[in-house]
């Protein structure tokens, strides 16, 4: 489904769009840890919301792990629930 969608958009666009891969898969991928704020910070918006995986290209499995880690980090006060 995704592949088909990608090819149709590629045909429409003049420039090629590179297929993104999950940043937490493959060798030397970073380990998702709720204590690693710097890593988690890249997957939340400026308002502090978790960015959907269709933008970040995180795989479904890793997105669940990531969301859990972000929620833990929020609970212990090292990440915000909302930035006003």
């Amino acid at each position: 489904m995704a592949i088909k969608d990608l090819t149709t958009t590629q045909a429409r666009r003049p420039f090629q769009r590179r297929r993104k891969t999950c940043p937490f898969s493959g060798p030397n991928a970073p380990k998702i840890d709720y204590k690693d704020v710097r890593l988690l910070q890249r997957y939340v918006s400026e308002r502090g919301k978790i960015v959907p995986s269709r933008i970040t290209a995180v795989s479904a499995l890793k997105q669940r792990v990531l969301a859990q880690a972000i929620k833990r980090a929020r609970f212990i006060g090292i990440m915000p629930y909302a930035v006003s």
Partner: protein
Amino acid sequence: MALYEHIYLARQDVSPQQVEEMTNNMTATLEAGGGKVTKNEYWGLKSLSYRIKKNRKAHYSLLNIDAPAPAVAEMERQMRINEDILRFMTVRVDELEEGPSAMLQKRDRDDERGDRPGGRPDRGGFGRGDRDSRPPRRF
């Protein structure tokens, strides 16, 4: 025995010595219940992302615990009673990590970020605002 990571936040007015004492008390409680503490990290006084019980800062401590569940439950019960403790979190893990945690080794991690595949170190996060709702799918 099960492995746990335990983080607790102490009120900002207590001294680091008192925090250390609290950690020692908790360690004693766990050892009385047949467990042990394999690592003990003090992260220092850090500012919170939001106010917790009217506090803007808190002393963070991390303990790596290898103890049976009743010992951990007893320690948590005592933490709930202690008013100097703002919040705590115990997470069961499959393996305890050796060496300093991500929080303490932040400084030297910045250098190795650059060679990560697909990682763009100059751009932190995704520089767009919040999206309201999912756009309609085209098929």
